[in-house]
């Protein structure tokens, strides 16, 4: 992911000069994603203005309390009632080949989802719905993913496309080209700026995450309290939306929030928290993703300070640390079980069943009351595993997730 981009940049830069090199540890792929807009010197405030979208904010705020269609025991098939896409034209017998253009598996969230997806694939192969899934991993690179999609279109011999876009704007034309083939296209996780896809699958979204987490913190903190916001990287919509919503709420409630980009590097996180603790007390920690949450808590422990009120994610390492330290925390969830849904959508599409045009999956944070239950359900899972992975009924459970077996 980021790091790969760095290495590439380093290689290129090394050819020209050593001196320039030191300046090249910034991630160029981010700049690529965002069109170089907000990176570098610009403070968080200007970014908020760019990413904040009142309409989307309001919509997701409502969806937080919406009723979902379908069986709550199978949240990966639930959706909010809305426009449906008629798929009768795709109805056909027999096995179909699916082509999957994946952005990357470069973080534990994507890896967990990727494992679940492959186990789901096994079920559908056994059922004779899917013959094979050809996957191309773009390794966090827009250009690679565009090439991957074009390869699928021209030579893939695909019956359906599943695309998990690396970035929003850059991948839009490629997704449109896939749509033009007249075959079903399923987009999931990050979005694109076109609605040509048969269905776009995603949990409620970043604003809902931001609202859940910021509300949790502001309820427990007082005006003037300090929150440190640890953010992975700029320029990815699902992450930017989380912060845009949270920043708005913090500002409204008079919470002093400082945000940092950490690259999920625990060394950075520890340094940031240590420095912040040296300048004054911190009452709250907000994270736009749970990767590195443990390092943040450890920084408080090492400094001998009172542990903060905190929001992390449903990653096992955080849930375990939460239980161990007994902090006041919330684990927002960017529903990992969404990785199952695209293949199940393909199944429905080839059966001619209608699917939601925008398939909004439930996204419920894990609260302190539910913590023990989720820990118990995921006993023996590795630290990088996500509690709401939703693969308990799939073959290979639990060994495949415990061993993190990836094809």
């Amino acid at each position, binding site marked *: *992911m*980021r*790091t*790969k981009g*760095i*290495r590439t940049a*380093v*290689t290129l830069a*090394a050819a020209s000069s*050593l*001196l*320039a*090199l*030191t*300046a*090249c*540890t*910034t991630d160029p792929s981010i700049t690529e994603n965002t069109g170089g807009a907000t*990176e*570098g*010197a610009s*403070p968080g405030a200007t970014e908020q203005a760019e990413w904040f979208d009142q309409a989307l904010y309001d919509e997701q705020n409502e969806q937080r309390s919406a009723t979902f269609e379908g069986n709550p025991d199978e949240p990966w098939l639930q959706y909010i009632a809305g426009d449906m896409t008629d798929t009768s034209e795709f109805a056909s017998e027999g096995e179909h080949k699916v082509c999957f253009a994946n952005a*990357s*598996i*470069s*973080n*534990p969230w*994507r*890896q967990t989802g990727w494992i679940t997806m492959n186990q789901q694939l096994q079920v559908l192969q056994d059922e004779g719905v899917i013959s094979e899934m050809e996957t191309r991993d773009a390794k966090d690179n827009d250009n690679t993913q565009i090439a991957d999609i074009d390869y699928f279109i021209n030579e893939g011999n695909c019956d359906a496309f599943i695309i998990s876009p690396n970035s929003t704007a850059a991948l839009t034309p490629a997704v449109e080209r896939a749509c033009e083939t007249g075959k079903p296209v399923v987009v999931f996780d990050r979005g694109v700026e076109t609605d040509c896809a048969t269905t776009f699958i995603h949990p409620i979204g970043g604003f809902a995450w931001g609202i859940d987490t910021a509300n949790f913190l502001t309820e427990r903190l007082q005006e003037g309290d300090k929150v440190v916001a640890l953010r992975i990287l700029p320029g990815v919509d699902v992450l930017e939306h989380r912060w845009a919503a949270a920043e708005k709420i913090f500002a409204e409630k008079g919470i002093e929030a400082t945000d*940092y*980009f950490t*690259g*999920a*590097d*625990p*060394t950075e*996180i*520890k*340094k*940031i928290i*240590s*420095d912040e603790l*040296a*300048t004054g007390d911190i009452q709250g920690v907000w994270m736009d993703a749970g*990767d*590195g949450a*443990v*390092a943040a808590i*450890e920084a408080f422990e*090492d*400094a001998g300070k009172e542990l903060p009120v905190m929001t992390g994610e449903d990653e096992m*390492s955080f849930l375990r640390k939460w239980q161990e330290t007994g902090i006041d925390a919330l684990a927002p969830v960017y529903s990992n079980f969404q990785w199952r849904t695209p293949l199940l959508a393909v199944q429905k599409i080839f059966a001619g069943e209608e699917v939601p045009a925008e398939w909004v999956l439930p996204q419920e944070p894990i609260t302190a009351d539910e913590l023990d239950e989720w820990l118990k359900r995921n006993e023996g899972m*590795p*630290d*990088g595993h996500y509690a709401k992975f939703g693969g308990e009924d799939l073959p290979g459970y639990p060994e495949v997730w415990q061993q*993190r077996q*990836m094809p």
Partner: protein
Amino acid sequence: MSRTLHADSGAVLQQNRAGAGERFRRTLLTPGGAVFILLVVLLAAIIAVNPSFGEPESFIRFIGRTAPIAIAAIGQYFVIVAGEFDLSMGSVVTMQVIVAGNLIGDDDAKVIPVLLLMIALGALIGLVNGLATTLLKVPSFIVTLGMMLALFGLVMYWTGGAAQGNPADSFRQIGRGGIQDVPVLGIIPYPVIILAAAAALGFWLMRRPYGRTLIAVGDNATAAALTGTRVWWVRTRAFMLSSLAATVSGILLVGYAGVHPSVGRGYEFTAITAVVLGGVVLGGGRGWLLSAAAGAFALESLFTLLNFLGVQSTWRDTVQGVIIIVAVAAAARSWQRRRRGSTAPARAEQHRITATSAKPAEGTEQGGNGY
């Protein structure tokens, strides 16, 4: 400190007879000495901005958290002073972090064997870097760049780019724990002790024949070879020291922060910047080991200061880039002046300087004879 002065011509030896105070002053004016002034100024500035930083407990923790990069700088110093580069350092750190995370897991019994394995791996990587550079005559820039990419690719293949979980707490204590209940300081973090040991060991090594030869090789490899030095083996050992230093950094970082494929990212350049900031000349032959370590502290202090001043951390790379250019330029000019000092007119000037300083020198010498 006066090692490089010895390495210079006889005129400088004459200078060496100046009093301790005068020698100290002159030392501070070299690039390798100036970094200590810079460090003091930066620390003073940080304390001015944020007085609580100066409390013994926060300060010792700052030293502890800077220890990994200082140790990396010490390792990089050996390679740079021998006239080479080690760009593979960051990847070695990352690899060791992942090795520790994946192989130790929660099993305390595996701590020692894996630790030994990591040290062996570190030495092996250094050996390969060194042999490829010296025997295959591939420039070290390319060898270590290739090693950096190869190791990084291996790490990505192994992990898919995501963390697997932290190793046993007993292992992490090396980087996270410390001696508790120390008066005044409160705690002495183990990394501080390890850094002190590494610095002492490095300092001693540079005063051994190996260290002298290493500098000679960096200054003029041909001349060193003509005196019977096995240049290839001297340099190869420098690479091994560098990789081993990276390994120690990795062990400390696993403890301090935990396992993540981004740990160690950019370490090679931070280490090179630190070494250069410490007045060590790229191309080899000049510079002091402790100045390199001080360079690491100065760099981290600068980043901390910028952070306290509210400068966005995204500026850090730019700052680092500017520093490395300025430091290289300053060091080159300064050392050049010293070298030119050996030419006749300049030597005359030096004698004059020595002469003028003779009076106060005499005064100090009487008191300073005890040295």
